[in-house]
């Protein structure tokens, strides 16, 4: 990220003046397999969310292939994430150099940059950079006299979260509806246009030139076990300095919020209630004190979860799905947790592609329940119901084709589990009459239809009565 803020940082001239494309020249003198080895040795793990080792992914390509495609995943749509955008806005040539080196390592013939539809300015910047790189001989035929050919195109998406899933991206690239494919075959064997394909995130590729030019030892000097190298962090919410920062892997969430070099503390000295440290879908951490036992706080046992380290392994200890995009969104103490739930479920309810049943119906059901909780017509039973739906929709390992279903269910389950007491307080504080009024508004049929005795009986589902199947509720 060294060119951010440098005037005219998007031009080839500025990039080259600072040693740009030297790594590419160096890489093109090596053998492709040597670069793959280098990346494997550096243990470069994907920066897009899943953290899959890039070198290993490249190694899955079948030998003796004629055509290989490299898809650059620039469909950055995870809610609080904007690190790729910063990269493409300010340092597009670093990405292009990464594409060139990775393309050479995987013997790619064509590279496609699948760019999110909402990136309009970024598209023009990157397109200009590509034109410059073509003019400078970094793309096209016989690059830098090495005899290696690589074409590079930008494909713009239409703004769907699901197209950031690698097979959804490939389908969309092929001009179809962005529905993820069933795996196997994996893209490395049969991807875009039924040819071997590598899909890597923008940030992952932008790391490759540095591994080549600065060496594996420099890389391994940053971060720690299994999580080496630098990472771009985003922080948003009511902090002093929201934005995108670069740091080694393994800083803590507290550093991200309060660190001098990062968020710089909370606005107005508010306390943190919750943090989504890796994008919405990875789950939530508690920012306030987390009493193990109801009643008094025990300073020895009780802690908040802000000491979670942002690397590939530590978040799992806190019940998160993984590092994700390392983009933290901070929820301050004065925000109603029901609002957070509405926000999360609304996003996934809208973005579910609708292919698998669980995700299609479940995500919207959760959204409706969240809306009702927010409107003040919640039942205690809803919390169990939310957990049950999210359990079925997908806990790793999921039951649907792609990970969106897991990603939609995980934060809901985390929110309900970690903030259950707050939800319960809200429900207890509801005015029963108002709640019934709201419920009548939401679904008059539930009250107007005669209820057949024996099949569905009126049972107490929360603080007020709603028609509900007693058997269903018991499960």
């Amino acid at each position: 990220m060294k060119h951010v803020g440098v005037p005219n940082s998007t031009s080839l001239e500025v990039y080259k003046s600072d040693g740009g494309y030297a790594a590419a020249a160096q890489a093109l003198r090596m053998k492709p397999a040597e670069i793959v080895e280098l990346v494997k040795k550096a243990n470069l793990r994907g920066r897009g969310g899943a953290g899959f080792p890039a070198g290993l992914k490249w190694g899955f390509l079948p030998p003796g292939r004629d055509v290989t495609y490299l898809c650059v995943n620039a469909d950055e749509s995870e809610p609080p994430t904007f690190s790729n955008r910063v990269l493409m806005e300010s340092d597009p040539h670093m990405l292009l150099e990464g594409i060139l080196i990775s393309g050479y390592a995987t013997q790619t013939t064509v590279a496609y940059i699948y760019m999110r539809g909402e990136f309009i300015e970024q598209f023009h910047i990157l397109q200009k950079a590509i034109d410059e790189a073509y003019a400078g001989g970094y793309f096209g035929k016989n690059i830098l006299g090495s005899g290696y050919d690589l074409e590079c195109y930008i494909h713009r998406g239409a703004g769907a979260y699901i197209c950031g899933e690698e097979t959804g991206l490939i389908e969309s690239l092929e001009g179809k509806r962005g529905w993820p494919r069933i795996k196997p075959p994996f893209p490395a064997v049969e991807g875009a246009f039924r040819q071997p394909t590598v899909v890597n995130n923008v940030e992952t590729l932008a790391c490759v030139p540095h591994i080549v030019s600065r060496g594996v030892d420099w890389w391994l000097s940053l971060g720690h076990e299994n999580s080496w190298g630098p990472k771009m962090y985003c922080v948003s919410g009511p902090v002093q300095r929201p934005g995108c920062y670069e740091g080694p892997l393994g800083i803590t969430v507290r550093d991200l919020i309060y660190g001098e070099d990062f968020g710089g503390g909370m606005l107005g000295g508010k306390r943190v209630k919750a943090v989504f440290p890796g994008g919405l879908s990875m789950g939530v951490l508690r920012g306030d004190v987390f009493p193990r036992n109801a009643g008094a706080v025990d300073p020895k046992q009780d802690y908040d979860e802000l000491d979670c380290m942002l690397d590939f392994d530590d978040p799992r200890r806190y019940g998160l799905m993984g590092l994700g995009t390392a983009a933290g969104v901070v929820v301050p103490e004065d925000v109603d947790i029901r609002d957070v739930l509405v926000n999360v479920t609304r996003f996934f309810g809208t973005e579910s592609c609708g292919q698998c049943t669980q995700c299609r119906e479940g995500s919207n059901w959760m959204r409706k329940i969240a809306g009702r909780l927010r409107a003040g017509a919640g039942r205690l039973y809803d919390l169990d119901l939310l957990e049950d739906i999210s359990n079925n929709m997908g806990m790793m390992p999921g039951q649907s084709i792609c990970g969106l279903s897991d990603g939609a269910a995980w934060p809901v389950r985390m929110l309900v589990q970690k903030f259950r007491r707050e939800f319960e307080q809200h429900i207890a504080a509801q005015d029963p009459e108002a709640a019934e009024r709201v419920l009548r508004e939401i679904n008059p049929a539930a009250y107007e239809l005669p209820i057949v005795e024996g099949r569905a009986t009126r049972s107490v589902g929360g603080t007020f009565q709603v028609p509900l199947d007693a058997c269903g509720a018991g499960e």
Partner: protein
Amino acid sequence: MPKIIIDGQEIEARAGVPVLQAALEAGMNVPHYCYHPGLAVVASCRLCLMEMKLPHPKTGEAVWAPKLFPSCQTPVKAGMEVRFESDKVRQNQQRVMEYYLLNHPLDCPVCDKAGECYLQDYTESHGAATSRMVEDKHKNPKKDIGPHTLLYSDRCVVCGRCVRFTNEIAGTGELAVTNRGSRNEIDVFPGVPLDNPLQGNVVDLCPVGALLDKDFLFRQRVWMLRATRSVSPVDSRGQTIFIDHNEHGIHRVRPRYNDQVNEWWISDEARFGWHHVHSADRLRQPVVRDGGQGAAVRWEELPGRVRQEIVQAVGEGDGAGVAVVLSPMMACEEAWLLARCVRELAPRATLALGYVPVRGEDESFPRGFVIKAEKCPNRRGIETLLEHFGGATTDWGGVLHQAVEGAYKLVYVVGGYPDEWVTDRRITDALGKVERLIVHDLFSSALAEQAGVCLPAASWAEREGSFMNCDGLIQPFDRALSPLEGVKGDGQFFWELAGEAGLYRAARVRERMAAELPAFAEVFVPQGLPRHAH
């Protein structure tokens, strides 16, 4: 044949099929929506998930994997062990069934699919009695998507079968999925209605009541229908069908699985090619014209009368002046009976293949479905019989030519075409020269008006027999309806004409034919689908 274990039961599966298919073929009731053996696998309904034993990563011992696998996507592998009877699987099925009904309007009482709906069946067998959703349902719209089809997208389960069908089998791709999440809808593109010669299949493919046939809309409750195995007479390929009927009326035609010919599909021609059966213009009364005015005649008198006509036409000679035109709409058995009877009375009678309707050219579809240009079911069968009987044989053109020359004293013309076929003056002119003309047809025509004896024929749904398709496959069809009042089944009439007593049964005639024609010893009846497959 790899052996696999499903629910502790060892079964032999066909190599290369998915586990789901193997389970269905073994007679198990595994719920599924998106899987169809004729279409690409998408594994999106997540209803057929199963547990599978995999080697443990550390010990290598086979243990139940924590993840559920889609059985439609997992190919059969010798020695594999899977199960559907487990809490995990059942819980998933129950939850998924609950999801399907969240926004479903539950309008079974007015739904055409009710009774054969897999949403009903699976909710009954795998779902829960009530929903836990208390919010209001949202409702996707009802749409008119083509000249023959309606789409009630509020009932849709988005299995995507119809979309894949138009892409893969019909190759026209009119349908697509639009919108996201539970607002997902199947839709057509603006200005491109669902209109291709195979489109009706999407209605059969739909496991729920989302896609509806306008022809069958609100016509009957399906449990009141009786299905009869039949073969479509609309083209020479011999698409096998079920005729769904009750109380002397056909209500719809659906495909009958046939691995040799039409697989799971039928063309729209076959699907809608039954309306002529109930046409008001059909002949209903045998008529005899002794010069001038025609007079109704009783069926009992007719066999004698026709024999008499033939005998008189033969006179002292050997019958060279007699010709029988065997229509390619006739069943093999009927043609055989008639030809044999006439040859007995007039040994040198001419046997002719009737008019063969051809429209356009053969139409082929991406996965090999063909709609034949030849719009009759049994040309090949009649030709085989002509070859068998030998002697003087000719075709329709030959008959007309000879008739103009005045070679015939008697011509027996069998028609039975669903459309008007006597459109050419030359036909009536040529056959007008014949002294004794017998016409056996479905509809009144200029030719029937000329006939000395005019017999009303029965449609294919009112007859039984077998058709030999264009590839030489002999396929039997059953009688769905009894003939119209005043009409006698063609086979029954020929049976009586041949001097036989009792009822005409196609199988019995076929046995006799087989003595002379070994090809008819065995007919092809396609194997049905497994009980729980759909």
